[in-house]
């Protein structure tokens, strides 16, 4: 029997976390040599590989005890769970970006923002008492201001090189994001020792 079942975000978060947990002394080879398997046993833990928003869903419903997912996904999707640890990996930030001479607040007209993260964008501008039109874009959001669909975009910026190559700049830094450990509210209580063991293990590698 595994101590905990952990939903892990596929892709970059997965790579960072495999490195970090190996550093903490956990044998992560089953995850490195996983092939196409989606449920993998590694030491005392059972890892479930999933897309980021699904990690939250699995944890919320309690079919996974814990999950490892980016703060960006947590902010966009919300939900009720405990957010107990910051892995400090995959550090980047939500930014408002646009063409260099963009004056977002100078006019009386309604601001148009394109984003893959409509909830984050809406929240940010609502916190500033601004009504904005949000346009949901599925990918390559940089296109929106270039094609004059929107005044600016809200997106994750890591190095800023994609922005730069397309002639865009960061207008405002919004929120810092990184990978987080989330825990189902019931598992936190009924498996307290197991969760504590995992968090202290991770802390040794931070």
């Amino acid at each position, binding site marked *: 029997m595994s101590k905990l079942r952990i939903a892990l975000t596929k892709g970059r978060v997965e790579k960072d976390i495999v490195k970090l947990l190996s550093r903490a002394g956990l044998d992560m080879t089953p995850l490195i040599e996983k092939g196409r398997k989606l449920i993998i046993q590694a030491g005392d833990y059972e890892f479930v590989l999933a897309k980021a928003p699904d990690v939250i869903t699995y944890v*919320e419903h*309690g079919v996974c005890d814990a999950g490892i997912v980016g703060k960006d996904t947590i902010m966009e999707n919300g939900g009720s769970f*405990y957010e107990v*640890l910051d892995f400090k990996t995959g550090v980047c930030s939500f930014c408002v970006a646009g063409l260099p001479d963009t004056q977002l607040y100078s006019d009386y007209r309604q601001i148009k923002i394109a984003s893959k993260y409509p909830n984050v964008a809406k929240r940010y501008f609502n916190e500033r008492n601004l009504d904005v039109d949000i346009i949901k874009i599925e990918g390559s959001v940089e296109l929106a201001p270039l094609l004059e669909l929107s005044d600016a975009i809200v997106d994750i910026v890591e190095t800023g090189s994609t922005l730069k190559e397309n002639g865009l700049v960061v207008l405002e830094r919004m929120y810092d994001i990184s990978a987080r450990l989330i*825990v189902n509210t*019931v598992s*936190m209580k009924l498996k307290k020792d197991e969760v504590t063991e995992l968090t202290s293990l991770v802390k040794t590698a931070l």
Partner: protein
Amino acid sequence: MRNNKITPVGMFDMLPGEASLKRNIEEQLKTAFTRRGFCEITTPTLEFYDVFSASQLPQESMYNLFDAQGRILSLRPDVTAPILRVCAGKLDPQLMPYRLWYCQQVFRRNKALNARRDEITQCGVEIVGAGGFRADVEVIVTAIESFLALGLDGFKIELGHIGYFKALAECSFDSKELSDRARTLVERKDFAQLSDLVERHAIGDRRAMGSLPTLFGGKEVLDEALSLAPNSDAKAVILHLKEVYDLLCSLGYEKYLSIDLGLVHAIDYYTGLVFRGYLKGLGDVVLSGGRYDTLSEAFGAGLPSTGFAIDVDSIAIALKKNAPQKSAGRVLVHCHAAEDFKRGEEELSSLFEAGVPAEMSLFDSLSEAINKAKSGAFSRVVFISDGKSEIYEFGGGKDE
């Protein structure tokens, strides 16, 4: 497209089996509540929106509509507020404290495509018009006894107290905004961001606030919280909680109890001791309750109150996992002709009295009845013809 063959999102049919399992739970809870002197109350499904405005529920989580005068009505999202409405205006104050139980549907909108039920049945109790230690104990004992009445054993009732966070926030933060931010972080057990916030903005003795997300577990948590308590308010809260906890232990309930001082989810609703119930194998909280001394002010009364609600649907799911799939031993009584029905009815009542599930056959011929039984629906067919009865058994392949 016509939608006459499907149910709206969040609404579910309860099929035979499920429905009777759920009804059983309701009956057992009703017995448990009645045994402790609670009386049933029912309130309307539709109420004015205003009844719930003090309940801190987000507007978008409610099913709202308009009455003929354009006033907002709500499908009740919660039973506590309507009960306080009744207690504040309609009940004889001589009879206080009121001990009431209810078993009603509540309606809440969940996120779409989430398989969550928007209509759930809540069974619970409210003690209205009683403050203090004894009512706090009574309501928790009732909660534990309810779970035991359902034959559940792998459950935990977790106690907390809103007053501890309030006392800490008051001396650590000098603005409502900061203490709200801290409350959200405590609720999410976000250790990292909370210690960051405390580091940067807290004043005075900040140790207790910084470690609040870790203050959950067994009895030792109370001792730790007491030693960390920065002021007399916080100390008083812990001493009250300890008194309740110790009394419950002396009643033999220790193995069902735990503590979480980070239970701060509905801080503007609850005013004192709060608690939640968890069940092994279920990802959701199945019982929640606590003391809400100020809610009745919304109805012009000052009634200190406490209570809890159990989510019957979740319990049904948990019990269904262990329940046997089919009730074995059903009997089909098949009468050959009209003159055999009197004898058949007698057979049916004697089976009923012996506690054997039985039903009258609706088939036209014995062979149809036997075929049905062979398919697994019945383990015995009683065939009545000319005043005599023959028995066909279909349990372990015996066919006679």
